């Protein structure tokens, strides 16, 4: 599943035409779903009005070809609620929400938050578990079970612990209560998660190498582990390249692929020419230019 970046013009304002082109690119190159705006889409550097505007564009451009989910996490929970209701109104297929920012909420506070969110809308809600970015705040296996029991639309998790024990804690708890609960990894850690009941991932590198991402997914689903291993090593190496000041380097790499999407909003830096040429040489080394689409 692809989560597009957010294109900006040189003065850092939204670049709607490029966003539309990018959405179309993802749909054409094998995305199984679109989800926007993840942190990679600079969600927290967008105003609420901007988020609504581009959410509407996403639903309109994708036009039912694949599902669209909207990431609604905002610093203020009241904004999150507003974005969730908006997503439902414009016809999105679901929403995604991380545990609340900043407050390091307790488990009962996290529970109350998801209960309120899930009851405010009818859309499926995907939760987002990212302890390493949120001071250890996480949804435990026991809390997953409780939320599943209480909330019929609590449908899945974007899991970003990338740790065997955490993943198993959640998968055991969730899949025993709801067998079709969607266990997704935050970036393309498909190889270690799919044998444990994972069903997919969001993609970090999909705007650079959509073919590689699809091949990795297929190899894992088919249980072709030697091939999956080679592909996973490659994709994870790209994650190392791009995660620095994410998504600055990714946007820099998109320039090299003939799909420029403009700068990154401060406080994140925009990839310098030097950084871009470093990325170019790494992409060359991995043969990405030969195997992946150039331009739109």
């Amino acid at each position: 599943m692809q989560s597009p970046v957010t294109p900006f013009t040189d003065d850092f304002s939204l670049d709607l035409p490029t966003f539309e082109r990018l959405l179309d690119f993802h749909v054409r190159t094998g995305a199984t779903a679109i989800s926007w705006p993840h942190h990679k889409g600079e969600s927290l550097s967008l105003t609420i009005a901007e988020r609504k505007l581009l959410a509407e564009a996403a639903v309109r451009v994708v036009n039912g070809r694949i599902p669209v989910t909207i990431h609604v996490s905002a610093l203020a929970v009241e904004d999150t609620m507003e974005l969730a209701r908006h997503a439902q109104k414009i016809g999105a297929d679901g929403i995604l929400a991380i545990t609340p920012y900043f407050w390091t909420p307790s488990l009962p506070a996290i529970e109350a938050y998801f209960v309120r969110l899930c009851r405010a809308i009818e859309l499926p809600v995907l939760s987002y578990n990212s302890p390493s970015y949120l001071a250890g705040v996480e949804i435990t296996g026991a809390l997953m079970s409780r939320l599943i029991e209480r909330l019929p639309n609590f449908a899945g998790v974007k899991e970003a612990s990338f740790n065997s024990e955490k993943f198993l804690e959640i998968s055991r708890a969730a899949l025993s209560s709801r067998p079709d609960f969607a266990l997704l990894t935050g970036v393309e850690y498909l190889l270690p998660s799919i044998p444990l009941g994972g069903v997919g991932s969001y993609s970090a590198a999909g705007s650079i190498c959509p073919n590689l991402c699809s091949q990795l997914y297929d190899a894992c689903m088919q249980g072709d582990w030697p091939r999956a291993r080679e592909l996973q090593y490659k994709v994870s190496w790209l994650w190392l390249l791009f995660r620095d000041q994410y998504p600055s380097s990714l946007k820099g790499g998109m320039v090299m692929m003939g799909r420029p999407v403009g700068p990154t909003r401060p406080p994140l830096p925009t990839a310098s020419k030097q950084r871009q040429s470093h990325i170019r040489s790494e992409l060359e080394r991995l043969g990405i230019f030969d195997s992946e689409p150039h331009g739109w």
Partner: protein
Amino acid sequence: MPVLTPGLVHTPVTPFSHDGGIALEVYGKLLDFHVANGAQSLALPMHIGESVSLTDGERRALLEFAVARLGDRIPVLAHVSESGSAIAAELARHAEKAGAAAMIVTTPYYWTPPATMLIEHFVAIGAATKLPFFIYNAPEEMQGARITADLCRELVAKLPNFAGVVDLSLDWQFMIELMTDAPRVRPGFQLISGTELMVSPAAIGATGMFAPLAAIAPRMVRELYDLCRAEKLFEARPSQEQLAALRQSIKLGGVAALKAAMRVMGRDCGEPRAPVLALEAVSLQRLVSELEAIALLHSEPRGW
């Protein structure tokens, strides 16, 4: 350089008698039990074997006893971690002389060294012998101290006998980075799962597994290991989930819980040494009822 593929590695506890001494007779029975129940190698004394609660003399005597008892049945990996580099190197030299097949070392206790000091520490120990040298990456047991793929890259260049990493960080990115790189520079470099959560490491390329839970459920451990080695990863999920449940029951109580569970299974190895306390009655009760609820234990061996 000598090659060793440890495979399925059991990590025996250290039995103590009522007077607090090592119960060597029980230890002998325990080693035989592990050999008879699926171990391909033993690593001892690991933290679960209370290495840090043994005196230097006891550690040496324990290793010598184990090597003699096992004969040529299966190899022994000697755990030689210490705070001081020279003390650890001395233990490593003893391990080689005593007949260990490999040495295994984690980050130094208590100190929180930067990467350069870690490298010096590992090189001092690794270069002390010609034995294959494995690093035990266990941030959870070591107050967060962990090794990185970069550090391993440097060590591969510096230590010809650096043979692999036993990973208890459970960190997918680390394992993937390590396996993308190290085996290319050093063919045969091994990733070994540091605990019974082997499916993800096996997918990434792990060829071995450390198994403290083999003291309780050796059959399930062996089943998981065999499925992982045969790359039947989807098929391995049920036994993986059961062992994850067992691990969760034992984890909080650590070695005290493992020893209590061993008693339930008819293999009494006494209580842990100070400062670790035996399980309180309430925790013990909870553990026993959890163990009874885990169906797999009904098909595991009782007694010695």
